[in-house]
C-alpha cells in the first residue's frame, strides 16, 4: 500500500520509493529507503500534510509526496 493511504497509527516497512527526480532523492536521503520503518503519527488540521515517524525523528510530508512511498504493513 501507499504511505499516503495510512491512517494515524498505521505504518510498516518501506518496500519501494516510487517518487523520482529531486523529490525521490530527498525522500531517500531522509531515510525513506527499502526496509525503513515508518508510521503515520497524525494529519494536519486542514487534512494535509501528514506527520510520520521515521527512525529516530519526525517528518512532515504532503499527501501527494507520501504517494511516492510504497510500504507493506
Amino acid at each position, binding site marked *: 500500500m501507499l504511505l499516503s493511504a495510512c491512517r494515524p497509527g498505521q505504518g510498516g516497512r518501506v518496500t519501494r520509493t516510487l517518487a523520482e527526480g529531486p523529490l525521490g532523492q530527498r525522500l*531517500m536521503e531522509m531515510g525513506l529507503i527499502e526496509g525503513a520503518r515508518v508510521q503515520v503519527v497524525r494529519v*494536519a488540521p486542514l487534512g494535509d*500534510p501528514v506527520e510520520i515517524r521515521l527512525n529516530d525523528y519526525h517528518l512532515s510530508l504532503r499527501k501527494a509526496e507520501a504517494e511516492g512511498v510504497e510500504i507493506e504493513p
Partner: protein
Amino acid sequence: MSVSAAASVRRIALIGNPNTGKTTLFNALTGLAQRVGNYPGVTVEKKIGKLEPGLEVIDLPGTYSLAAHSPDERVAVDVLLGAQAGEPRPDLVVVIADAGNLERNLYLVTQVMETGLPVVVALNMMDVARENGIAVDPAGLESALGVPIVPMVAARREGLDELRAAVKRRLGSPAPKTGWTWPPPLAKELEALRHACQEEDCLLLRALVDEGGAAEEALAGRHGAGVRERLRGARARIREAGKPAAAFEAQTRYAWIGQAVRPHVSRRDAGVSFTDRADALLTHRVFGSAVFAVLMTGVFMVIFRCAGPFMDFIDAMFGTLQEGVTGLLAGTALEGGAFESLLVDGVIAGVGGVLIFLPQICFLFLFIALLEDCGYMARAAFLMDRLLRFCGLSGHSFIPMMSSFACAVPGVMSARTIANPRDRLATILVAPLMSCSARLPVYSLLVAAFVSDAVVAGFLPLRGLVFAAMYFLGIVVAVAVAFLLKRTLLKGPTPPFVMELPPYRRPSPRNVSLRVWEAAKAFTVRAGTIILAISIVIWALNYFPRSDEIAESYAILREAAEAEGLDEDALAARLEDLERLEAGAYQRDSYFGRMGHFIEPLVRPLGWDWRIGMAALASFPAREVVVATLGIIYDLGGEVDVEDDTSRARMVERLQAVAWPDGRPVFNLPVALSIMVFFALCCQCGATVATIKRETNSWKWALFAFAYMTVLAYVGALAAYQIGIRV
C-alpha cells in the same frame, strides 16, 4: 608580512543538518567575532568567524545532503569543493551531528568524507539523546567510522575545548578512508566517467547522481556540454540495472551507516517523549489550531501595539532633536534657509524614518528567533501549509505574510526563513499588499470624513465595514498575485515540503539575542542608507525651487500685519496663519507641486485633483506622510494628528470644503474610496522598496514590486471611483 599572514590563515568549514545546533556551536566557537555578508549573486548569507588568530570558521547553510537542490545547499557544496568564487577551499570540515538522530545525520558525514578534506564530527546534543534513551559510545563509533568524534553539548558549551583540540590535531591530515563500495552498476559508470574527465571522485559521483545539479553544471563548464549527454546515458544504464542512481547511493550509505552504528548505540524505551506529548496538543486538530491562533494573535498584537511606545519615543526624540537644531540655528545666518531645512526635514527626519522601524523589527525577530529555536516554527508551517498551497505557496510563507499586517519591512525580512527561492521571492513580492499599520492613518482620516456612521443590517457599523474591506482587499489581491506569479515569472517545479519536525527545545538566549541584533543591524546599515538617500531626494523635490516671489509677498503681508497695531495675541495668531499659508504656497509651488499639475490628466479619472496627485507622489518615502502633506497643501500645517479628535475634525472640515474651480466639492465618498484603495494597494513606502532590494540583492525585484503595485493601485482606485460615481 601582511601577505604571508593572509596566506597562513587556515579555514574550517562548519556544516550539518538543520536543527542540530549548528548556529549555537558557531556562536559558541566564535563569539561576536563574526562577519556577515552575502555570497555573490545569491541571497545566501555568508558567516565567517574567528576561532583563534590564524584560524577562521565559515558557517555553511544547513543541509541534509550534498545533493544540492536549493541555492543554500549549492553554496555549501561549492564551498566544500572549492568551486565558490572568492572563497578558498577549507582546510578541514567540522560536521555537526545530532546524537539523537544518528543515522540520518551520518548520511551527510559519509558524503563529506568523500570530499578529500580532513573531517571532524561534532556529536551534539548528547544530553537530549540520553534523555530519550539513546546511548552512543563515541570511541567505538570513532573507530567504526574512521573519523574523530567529539561528543558535546554545544548549548552548555560542553566539549568545546575538545573540539578545538581535535580540529588542530587534524589540520593537515589526509582525508578519511571511506569503507563502503558502490554497487557494480554505479561503480562501473563512475569508473568510465573518471576516464573521460579527470576530476575528483566526489564531484563525479554528484554529477552522476544529481540530475541537473551543481556538479553537472561544473563538469559541463569544464569539459563541454557533451558531458551532459554522457551523464544521461550513464544514468539510463544504471536505471536499467535495477534502480535510479540516487537509490543506489542512499541504500549503500544507509547500509554502511547501519552496520557501523549498530554495535555502538544502545536504545532503551524512554516512554513518550516531551515532544510527543506537546505535539499531541500543539498539532491537534482543534487545540492545535486554537493555540496557533492565540499565539499568532499575540505576536501580531505585540508588534502592532507594544512597539508603539518605543516608536513614539523615537519619534519624540527626533522631534526634540529637530527643535533643538532649529533653536541652535535661530539668529544665525542659516535660520530658515535651505541648509536648516535639509538638516531638519531631510537628514534628521530621514534618520528618524529609518530608526522608527527598529522596534517592530526587533519584536518580530525576537518572536521568530524564539519560535524557530524552540522548534515551533516547523509546526506553524505544518498547520498552515494547506491554507497557503492554493495560491502556490507553502506553510513557510505564513509568518512573513502575517507580520506584514503590522509592517511589511520586518515581514519581508522574515521571508529569509523560506528555503525555496521562488517561494521566498513570491512571498516578498506580495507581503507589502497586506494592510500595514502605516495605512491606518490614511484609512482613519478618510473614513471619518466621508463614510457615514450608519449601521448596516442592524449591527454592522459601515465605517468598520469599509476598514475591514480594505484589509480584505489586500489579502485577496495578494493571493491572486501570488497565484499568478507562481504560474508565470516564478514558475517551476513544486519544491518538496519534506520537512523535519524537530524535537522541542529550550531556546538559547544567546542565539535569540544575536538573531535580533543581526536583523536590526542589517536593516539599519543596508536598508537604512537607501531609505535615508531616498528621504533626502524627496525632501529636495518638496523644498525647491523656493521662489523669491512667495517669500517677498509673505514678507509684505507680515509687515502689514505688524503695522496694523493688533494686540500681542492677535498678532501672534495672524503670523502663525501666515506661516501656514506660506508653507502651503511653497508646497504647491515645489517640484512635486509642479509634477502634481503635470500628472493631473492621469489622476483625473480617479476623481483626484492635482493636489491629491501631488500628495500621493510626495508620500513615496512613507504613505502615512500623505496625511501631513494634504494638511500642508490645504493650509492646515503639517501637524495633523488623526488620533486627536479636534485635529482630525479640522482636517475633515477642510477636506470637505475643497472644491473644483466650478464649485463642486473635490472630496466625496467615491474619491475617498479611490484614495483608500490606492493606498491599500500601492507601494508608497521607501523602506519597503529598500528592504526588498536588500533581501533579494537586486534592484530589479524592488522596482518590479513598486511598479506592479502602483499599477494595481491605479487600476483599483480607478475602478473604485468609476463604480462609486455610478452607484
